[in-house]
């Protein structure tokens, strides 16, 4: 178990190195930091001084090593646009994105899994057909369109829910949460649905396919032959066996939700990291972009590790060194 975690961590290192190399390359190839910081009318002497100060005259790999050294400590320099430390900016925005992503993932799982189980068990019922049609819509409509349609219906038309922003937030240490106020919760609903809908339909279709597969297996037939109740068979024996692939996809999707919250955050003007990233792209704010890129890579690597560990919890066949064979 411990060796497994270590080997997974070691595998993560090349991934992170590659991403950090790309991030670093952005500094060199996306815009010119010196002219951005000094403006167009700086003298040659001023430029040379800044280049020396920033260490830009040093060999490429020395700069890269320095970059990594600082990145490991969470230092990504100052934002060009806001002249504030990047780490601070991201820390400020992270709670909004994480809360949104968790809500979206929760909706996707809490609705997608039961719908998948239902459609897998009752393949030909009218409700199943309705769910499947609905899931096609969820898969094929682009996120921004769903967001705009929801705004049109619930914010503009019915006026029940706010169309943008996070509502009132409560500060707990450095974390700002929207869960503790009514306006914060109301503001959460539309963006979370928008962000979670695609994952919801994906999970539903996956659970359905897996359920149908598992229900055909011998051990389900044998469970029926043993006279177990439908409930024990469907929700105990069958559902648990569908969970391994579902955990994989759901885990990867959580990474995707955090990474691609950009569109949803833009549509709803959600003050999260995605919106920060979009604004940074607009003004070629390379330090923020680089930090965001690396953070997302870190999120994916971490979630993958957690997913692998969850397999161990679910599937005893993966646990090694236990019992005789």
């Amino acid at each position: 178990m411990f060796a497994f975690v270590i080997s997974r961590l070691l595998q993560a290192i090349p991934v992170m190195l590659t991403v950090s190399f790309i991030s670093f390359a952005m500094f060199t190839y996306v815009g010119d930091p010196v002219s951005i910081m000094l403006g167009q009318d700086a003298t040659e002497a001023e430029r040379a001084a800044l280049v020396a100060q920033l260490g830009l005259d040093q060999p490429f790999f020395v700069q890269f090593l320095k970059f990594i050294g600082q990145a490991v400590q969470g230092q990504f320099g100052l934002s060009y646009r806001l002249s504030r430390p990047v780490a601070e900016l991201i820390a400020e925005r992270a709670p909004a994105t994480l809360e949104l992503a968790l809500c979206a993932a929760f909706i996707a799982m809490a609705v997608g899994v039961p719908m998948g189980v239902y459609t897998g068990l009752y393949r030909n019922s009218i409700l199943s057909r309705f769910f499947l049609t609905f899931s096609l819509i969820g898969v094929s409509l682009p996120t921004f369109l769903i967001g705009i349609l929801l705004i049109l219906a619930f914010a503009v038309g019915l006026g029940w829910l706010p169309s943008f922003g996070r509502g009132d937030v409560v500060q707990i240490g450095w974390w700002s949460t929207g869960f503790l106020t009514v306006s914060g919760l109301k503001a959460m609903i539309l963006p979370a649905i928008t962000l979670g809908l695609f994952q919801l339909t994906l999970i539903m279709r996956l659970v359905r396919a897996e359920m149908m597969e598992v229900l055909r297996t011998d051990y389900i037939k044998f469970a029926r032959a043993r006279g177990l109740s439908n409930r024990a068979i469907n929700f105990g024996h069958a559902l648990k066996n569908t969970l391994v692939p579902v955990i994989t996809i759901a885990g990867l999707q959580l990474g995707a939700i955090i990474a691609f919250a950009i569109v949803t955050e833009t549509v709803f003007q959600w003050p999260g990291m995605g919106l920060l990233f979009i604004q940074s792209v607009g003004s070629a704010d390379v330090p923020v972009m680089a930090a965001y890129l690396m953070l997302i890579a870190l999120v994916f690597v971490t979630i993958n590790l957690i997913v692998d560990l969850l397999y161990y919890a679910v599937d005893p066949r993966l646990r090694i060194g236990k019992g005789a064979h």
Partner: protein
Amino acid sequence: MTAPLLEVRNLRVEFPTRRGTLTALHDVSLTIQPGEVLGMVGESGAGKSMTGAAIIGLIEPPGRIAGGQVLLGGRRIDNLPYDQMRHVRGRQIGAIFQDPLTTLNPLYTVGRQLVETITTHLPLNPAQARARAIEWLELVGIPAASQRIDSYPHEFSGGMRQRVVIALALCAEPRLIIADEPTTALDVSIQAQVIALLKRLAREKGTAMLLVTHDMGVIAETADRVAVMYAGRIIEIGPVRQIVKHPRHPYTEGLMASIPPLDRRVERLAAIEGSMPRLSAIPPGCAYNPRCPKVFGRCLTERPELLDAGTTQAACWLHADG
């Protein structure tokens, strides 16, 4: 003769397909007495396993019982709703499947699977059920049962898993076991052990058994009576000794001749020429007529019912005069 434990009357199983309805079982009738072992033999696809599945009510949809009756202890069970039938399954009729590698749920310990079966059917609390589960594991010959009960199926070998499956099938003390090729997936050296175990437990508990197999050796040493199936029908049924020594139906003769004799060398094993017809292309008359060495005019036009043929019943016109 006492009242039969199981009585199957004119059972007919159909599979609707796009090209019309296929009949997998025609007019299958049989009885099993309490404590009796009825062997069922035949080629793959003859309907042996289908008969077992129909009795326990687990035919895969879209297949369905289209006619006939199944009676257990005089009570009809083929038309019970799912929730009543599930109290018959496991409690009254246990089942053992072919492949022990796939019949156990890989994600639950064998103990959990035993305990859930026991508590489903018997009025025991979890602690008592667990004690009972350990007893059963000991009965089926799992060493160190009280420790192995918390092992997962993948931690057992194939033969041990089949022992666990047997424990699962028997743990609610059913009156009848349907063993569908219980040893086919096992090593030859293990097969004999598992059959011996099954035989011993059935005798000790007084459990009747429908033993589906294509291994005549297993039948010869285990069964009391034998039913031979061909193309969805029982074509010969009778006491095991008679069927093995003096088969009356040419197909049964062919089956027996294909068993290698132990007392002399043979250059080539006798085999039955050709193969069983597909369900969609069963010839008129006797289904065996294209392969039968003793075929004559009547076989091609008229299908024989089971006829008394001395010591057994055989569906063959050779015995039309009794």
